[in-house]
């Protein structure tokens, strides 16, 4: 699989308008060789799926920063399946819950919702990109940082 052709859809879910991290993710993943379709902030679940269908994206990267992640992100996997994206890789990241919660509990909660991988603030984007390469079955190495 040629990595240039690996399209990923990116956006901040729900009514969340934190745009800085989203811009960083776009620049970073593009630099590493992915074709990034960035939907920006305040993106409803269906819009991620619409864009993934049209672009043939194989992964969707969801961000949630403002503390409502649990509500906004629930049911996303089911919706993807319903709309014909059974095989899409789903990542989620950001300040996923309000207040102090053990990271393992957060990760476990979002894994159960159907997200393949869960990232918390301060995560290493290099690792995330590498995991994405593997999850998409891309054999060649990513572009340098």
């Amino acid at each position: 699989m040629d990595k240039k052709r690996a399209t990923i859809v990116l956006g901040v879910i729900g009514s969340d308008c934190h745009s800085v991290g989203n811009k960083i993710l776009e620049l970073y993943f593009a630099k590493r060789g992915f074709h990034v379709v960035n939907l920006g902030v305040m993106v409803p679940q269906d819009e991620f799926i619409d864009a993934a269908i049209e672009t043939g994206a194989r992964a969707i990267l969801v961000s949630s920063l403002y503390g409502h992640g649990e509500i906004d992100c629930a049911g996303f996997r089911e919706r993807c399946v319903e709309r014909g994206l059974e095989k899409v890789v789903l990542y989620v990241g950001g300040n996923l819950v309000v207040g102090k919660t053990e990271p393992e509990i957060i990760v476990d909660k979002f894994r159960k919702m159907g997200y393949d991988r869960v990232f918390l603030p301060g995560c290493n984007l290099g690792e995330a990109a590498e995991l994405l390469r593997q999850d998409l079955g891309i054999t060649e190495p990513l572009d340098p940082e």
Partner: protein
Amino acid sequence: MKPAPHNLISIDIGSTYTKGALFAFGGPAGARVLKRCEVPTTPHLTDGFNRVLAGLVPRGGGAVDKVDTVDRVDGNPRAATPAASTLSTPSTVSTVPVRFSSSAKGGLRIAAVGLVPELTVKIAKLAACSAGGKVVRAFAYGLTSESVAELEALAPDIVLVTGGTDGGNRERVLENVRLLAASRLACTIVYAGNSELACEVRKLLAGKKLRVTDNVMPEVDRMNLEPARAEIRHAFLETIVEGKGLAEVVRAVGAPPKPTPLAMFELAEALAARRPRWRDFMVVDMGGATTDVYSHTEAFMGGDGAVLRGVHEPLLKRSVEGDLGLRVSALPLYEAVKDSVHSPELEAFVRKVAAAPDYLPQAPEELEYDRVLARACVKEAVLRHAGILRSVWTPTGRVSVQHGKDLRRVRTMVGTGGSLARLRDPQLWSGMWAKPDGEELNLLPEQFEYKVDAEYLWPLLGNLAAEFPEEAAALAENCLQPLSGGVILTPPETPGGCQRRV
């Protein structure tokens, strides 16, 4: 030295009337209309066309710049009918250049195929409408054998196939193309989807009349309508000339036809380019069967921290409402608006005119029913054309999310079409802003002047707008009657009756 005037004839073959006018462009008096002529459209389109032409061709050869007082009835929206002697003229050879448009025989019927309703399906519809077509049916996601059978039964003039960004979706788009390849469809197929599939599409559809062009949506949130429009225009020339009995006219006048709505589209472009006061305007063309709405204004301004979701609509947009019209579509119109206007008398009137589309009411109460219907019709058509601003509550407060096109800055509203010309109703827009309160704001024009194209010259000027934009635009502006008397219409300031900004 002023250039010498030259004459031009423009004719529009409508579904009920064939109308035409003789113009003088370039003379010292500026662009002028010299003569108008109108006859019922004939089953053999050439007959009606020739009658109108015979009524318009200036006698004696040379260029004329004088209003012909014999055939032209000033201020009367019903144009002169050609003298009986010319009616029998089988065909007239015009010494004056002739341009013409047609919306007869169903107009340009397009079926749109796309993937996601809010993306390629929506953009395919915009492309079809802006090329002067009428979308008879739109299909989303995967076609099925049932939908293909439906397509075959509809027998559209063109199937516009879209789907996928460039380098995007392959499987579903190819599957749709395979199903079309196996169908009995004989019409032109315009492919404007994922451009990476162009080769495969050419192979699969080798047995069909196929035109392949650039993607209408090369990337999510980037629309590219022009190439698809151009292909539709070319296909229209073929379809109309071959299939709609216009070949004879084309041969006689030596010019290709345009779909009537495309002529209007080009006139709107000319006005925006040539007339300083025409930046933000709309045109409503209300007919018996359909109501067309055109808007020329930037779709999204992004003030007050508003976020646009969905497609960023084009500066010049056309929408067609096939279920809104005063005669043939009177019943579906009544269905759509009866929550706000209904009475047994009105319903009886609707049934009467739907059964007799040529009916012209004379009695005052019947004229009033027509006005009530027209007001509801334009309101509904403009509401469907307009976008919506929704308030979304976030932890910090309200954020506005816009879907569709913002029409709030529109300052001029033009009414055209037989019914609006006939009714000349200064109250046409009085009910437009009335709507129950809610969290949603319909992005309707906030204040505008209403003018009417009382002699129905706009489609005729549209035929000339691409070649003579300056003069067509000048005359289009000057021929309007200011129905609201120069007054700017604004929403009434009554509680609950108007919509405030969020």
